[in-house]
């Protein structure tokens, strides 16, 4: 491949500008770190940390960054289609941004946001001092970051993937997508997928093995339950993606014939494998949100969560059903009535456990004394909006009717109506809810509420018109349309909504700066009058989480102890065993990144050399003697005294 081909995307002014702004941004960060002499701090405290709270914060930081990357893609798409025959983007560029919008939003925004929150909250909620495998956790994060970086690099170097986020064959084959774009797709997703798989193993082990004494499975907070089930789905769904991506790479770069249309290959098998992973993936990003809403609704309605057992059961049923519905993504691709019938029924069946959860939330709020805080607003907004998404989902589930909706904007509107109130509202609610736990000060409520209303209203303005456009036959992924179709006005309305959404997200980010400057720092540990164990320790949380591991006898032990005037964190201090920091995960993922980057361009020799670096770190780890370290009782006493402020 010539240099010209590698850098051809930069011939486009918009991409060149983006590339320049990335370079300038990087220079500013590097210069800033050097000027304030923060390199050592940055390296020691962040790049080589194994602390679950810091890893969680880094996940969320990347997620917010990617929210803007994906958001800019979305704005460009809406701007391009705002008026008929618009020439803002050409067809190729439009293909690239709808592909990366999907990939970035699902895999590099929703996933890390969810994983970030679970990193921060889960060990605290179950009364543990860290996750089961702290260093593996760091590897998970850095592998995810490497994959994320690789995908974002694609639009400057070599060209973005452009065959849709689903990358259906034969379109994604080298015959129809000759650029390296889809090589980036297979390798970037592979890297971050490996990281996610390790997270799955890590958190299942953590939740099964490291709960506080007395916390039986059925006494766990609902968020912990949702994360346990989510990680079980991760462990069983992600290997399918790993295999599918490997086959894709073999097809594109080694001339195998798995997904070709000749020589015994089967192009539809890609769609099949993709959705065998892809549908459970939807539940991987939605179940944690259900858990977050359960916590928030119980906290701010000041009531016990209604129907705890049915909540758990419905999540287990959803997790099983999530593996039984994937063919509904391609009803129209030629299988018979029997297959479509089977998958129609399983798909509609998911509405039942989801409905159970809806009613449980409503009944939790019934007769409750609701306080309308920012997180609670997101939870309240979620219920009606998500229901619209759910109802249109049942419409789409009917195979015969789906022939009308398939690949239209109706579908696009549906999944945004599920994923935005579900996942995005969920993680934003969790982000506002647990922010004081992470940093020791609250986010400003006024700005938080302004952000919520901007997002909730603009969201409906953006996506409701798409239902109507879809029913009128407006196909998705069209880069433009003629005026005679009459799609213009509603598309314009949708663009206006998209601007509102952008404003909402800007308010949320501005709120970080505003609150950092203006909000009081001496916030008490239990800011929201919470129910579960994370509120029992200080804010911000000390490295060891709990000076004394609390003992639990019931669900919401902290809440009842508070009412009865007991202190569950009282007890004698003992020295605490903690894992050592290590920069190995960071460097190892760096080698992974290099290997994947060279592999994108089929430069196999440098790729293999980089992989040797990865193996080098694995071998070094095998011979490393690292038994962790102890925090002494004096040190704990000092930290506790400082954090209590000893008033």
């Amino acid at each position, binding site marked *: 491949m010539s240099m010209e081909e590698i850098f051809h995307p930069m011939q486009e002014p918009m991409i060149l500008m983006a590339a320049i702004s990335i370079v300038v941004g990087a220079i500013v960060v590097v210069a800033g770190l050097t000027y304030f002499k923060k390199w050592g701090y940055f390296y020691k405290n962040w790049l080589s940390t194994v602390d679950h709270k810091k890893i969680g914060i880094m996940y969320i930081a990347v997620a917010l960054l990617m929210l803007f990357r994906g958001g800019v893609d979305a704005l460009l798409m809406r701007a391009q289609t705002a008026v008929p025959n618009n020439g803002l983007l050409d067809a190729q560029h439009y293909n690239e941004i709808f592909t990366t919008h999907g990939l970035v939003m699902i895999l590099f925004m929703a996933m890390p946001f969810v994983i970030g929150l679970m990193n921060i909250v889960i060990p605290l909620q179950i009364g543990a001092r860290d996750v089961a495998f702290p260093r593996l956790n760091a590897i998970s994060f850095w592998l995810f970051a490497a994959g994320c970086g690789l995908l974002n690099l694609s639009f400057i170097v070599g060209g973005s993937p452009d065959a849709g986020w689903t990358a259906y064959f034969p379109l994604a084959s080298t015959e129809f997508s000759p650029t390296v774009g889809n090589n980036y797709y297979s390798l970037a997703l592979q890297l971050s997928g490996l990281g996610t798989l390790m997270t799955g193993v890590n958190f299942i082990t953590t939740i*099964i*093995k490291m709960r506080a004494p007395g916390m039986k499975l059925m006494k766990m907070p609902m968020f912990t339950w949702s994360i346990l089930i989510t990680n*079980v789905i991760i462990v*069983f*769904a992600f290997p*399918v993606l790993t295999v599918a991506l490997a086959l894709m790479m073999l097809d594109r770069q080694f001339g195998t014939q798995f997904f070709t249309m000749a020589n015994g290959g*089967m192009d*539809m*098998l890609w769609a*099949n*494998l993709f959705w*065998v992973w892809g549908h459970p993936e939807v539940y991987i990003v939605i179940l944690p949100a259900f858990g977050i809403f359960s916590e928030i609704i119980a906290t701010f309605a000041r009531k016990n969560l209604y129907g705890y057992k049915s909540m758990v059961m419905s999540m287990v049923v959803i997790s*099983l059903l999530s*593996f*039984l519905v*994937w*063919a509904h993504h391609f009803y129209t691709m*030629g*299988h*018979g009535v*029997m*297959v479509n019938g*089977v*998958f129609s029924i399983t798909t509609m069946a998911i509405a039942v456990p989801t409905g159970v959860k809806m009613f449980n939330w409503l009944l939790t709020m019934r007769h409750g004394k609701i306080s309308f805080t920012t997180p609670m607003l997101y939870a309240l907004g979620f219920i009606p909006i998500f229901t619209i998404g759910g109802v249109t989902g049942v419409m789409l589930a009917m195979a015969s009717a789906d022939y009308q909706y398939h690949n239209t904007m109706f579908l696009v509107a549906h999944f945004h109506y599920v994923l935005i109130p579900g996942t995005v509202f969920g993680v934003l609610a969790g982000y506002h809810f647990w922010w004081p736990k992470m940093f020791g000060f609250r986010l400003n409520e006024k700005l938080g509420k302004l952000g919520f209303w901007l997002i909730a209203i603009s969201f409906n303005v953006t996506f409701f018109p798409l239902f109507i456009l879809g029913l009128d036959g407006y196909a998705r992924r069209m880069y433009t349309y003629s005026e005679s179709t009459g799609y213009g006005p509603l598309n314009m309305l949708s663009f206006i909504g998209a601007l509102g959404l952008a404003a909402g997200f800007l308010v949320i980010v501005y709120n970080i700066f505003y609150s950092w400057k203006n909000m009081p720092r001496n916030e008490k540990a239990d800011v929201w009058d919470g129910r579960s164990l994370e509120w029992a320790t200080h804010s911000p949380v000390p490295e060891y989480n709990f000076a004394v591991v609390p003992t639990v006898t019931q669900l919401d032990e902290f809440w009842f102890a508070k009412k009865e005037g007991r202190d569950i964190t009282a007890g004698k201090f003992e020295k605490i065993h903690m894992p050592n920091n290590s920069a190995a995960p960071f460097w190892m993922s760096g080698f992974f990144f290099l290997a994947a980057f060279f592999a994108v361009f089929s430069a196999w020799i440098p790729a293999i050399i980089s992989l040797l670096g990865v193996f080098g770190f694995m071998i070094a780890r095998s011979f490393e003697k690292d038994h962790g370290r102890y925090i002494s009782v004096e040190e704990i006493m000092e930290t506790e005294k400082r954090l209590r402020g000893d008033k």
Partner: protein
Amino acid sequence: MKELFPKQHVMGFGFSLLLTIVALSVVTLDMSYNIAFTILLVTALAQATVQLVLFMHIGESEDKKTLYTSILYAVFVGVITIIGSLLTMIWGYQ
């Protein structure tokens, strides 16, 4: 001395060797496709059981309930994925 002899492991090793040889017979002996595949499926399942029970001691830890549940779940997902893919891609394809 008797307690020190790793009887289980030796038994497991023997079984795995035997099962491997039986599976290998599919290649060396001449037999029909159906019989060959039946042999492979049966020996594969037996092999997996030997590994789990004799080497990984699945029934001997206190959280064996969790382990059995996750294996059941894995079997469920695996069977559904394979049968379902065959259904959508071959049997039910028009």
